[in-house]
């Protein structure tokens, strides 16, 4: 599915295109960015692994993906994954690939646009995510967007070979409507 362009206060989300994948690959291969990604222990991305892991779900209609831009500058990606119309739910994945753009609220702005799309246009009622339990900046951003902590998954992934706890969070449509309608 090709999502619409979404405009926030500071960012613009436009559908991801195959020619963006070279950027996605560069972002993944930045150790400062990859540190926080679920796949941090994978080897460097190649154009082939990016195509398989990142692009194929979009191509097969199992995910929607946007490129996040501020001004004319691409800064990251936002995806809705595992979209399940029966249960009315999806998972959200965001990464700001330019570390010098961190801490400016771009992710918060982007997520708020994507949640509006998920609840109003896709008709979902639940959007969830998991994040590293020590990712304080990420968690603060998600909480600003209405996500609530639902559980702590112990030793859910490895970072540099060490087990790491992850937080599972979700926002329900009813919470979203109360906060932003």
């Amino acid at each position: 599915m090709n999502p619409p362009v979404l405009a926030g206060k500071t960012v613009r989300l436009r559908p991801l295109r195959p020619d963006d994948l070279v950027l996605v690959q560069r972002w993944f291969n930045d150790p400062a960015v990859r540190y926080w990604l679920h796949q941090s222990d994978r080897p460097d991305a190649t154009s082939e692994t990016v195509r398989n892991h990142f692009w194929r779900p979009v191509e097969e209609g199992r995910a929607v993906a946007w490129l996040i831009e501020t001004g004319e500058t691409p800064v990251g990606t936002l995806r809705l994954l595992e979209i399940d119309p029966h249960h009315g739910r999806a998972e959200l994945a965001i990464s700001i690939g330019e570390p010098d753009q961190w801490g400016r609220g771009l992710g918060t702005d982007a997520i708020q646009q994507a949640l509006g799309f998920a609840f109003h246009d896709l008709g979902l009622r639940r959007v969830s995510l998991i994040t590293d339990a020590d990712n304080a900046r990420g968690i603060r951003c998600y909480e600003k967007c209405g996500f609530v902590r639902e559980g702590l998954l112990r030793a859910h992934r490895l970072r540099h070979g060490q087990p790491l706890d992850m937080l599972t969070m979700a926002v329900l449509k009813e919470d979203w409507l109360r906060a932003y309608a």
Partner: protein
Amino acid sequence: MRLRPVQERDLPQFVRWLQDRELTRWLAAIGDPPSLEEEYDWWHDKRADPDSILWAIDSPEGRLVGTVELRLTMRAERAEMGIAIHDKAQWNKGLGTDAARLVVDYAFEELNLNRVELTTDEENARAIRCYEKVGFVREGLLRQHRLVDGVFGNTLIMGIVRDDWMPLDRDSED
């Protein structure tokens, strides 16, 4: 109780059991009852999937009663367990608990995993009791996660990590 690979000849029995809403309302894959052909495709896909280990559960008398599966995420040294005793006449006999214990042991001992997790319907008290006996701990509650017969229900997520784990034969060794 014994675990063994699922065979093609088991499939018609699964299809018969999966007609029963009293069973399927608890399953993560809550769709319409499968046809034999769909069940065959499911089995075929599982056999081809390197990240899935699927066993049939036989009762002590050697009768098929259900299945248990590990879905592996090896790069995170983690697996998700899915278990079902399909034969309702065999519920409440501890077969699921025994099978889950064996599989958790296998995951830590043979596969060297760090974590086994599962999700279950918050209202599935019998299953939750079984998982707690095996050593799974409640880690979170996913709100309005599943639509079952028109009602949204919560899903419990439970996990057991290597530090929680008591191997089956430890008592006899000490």
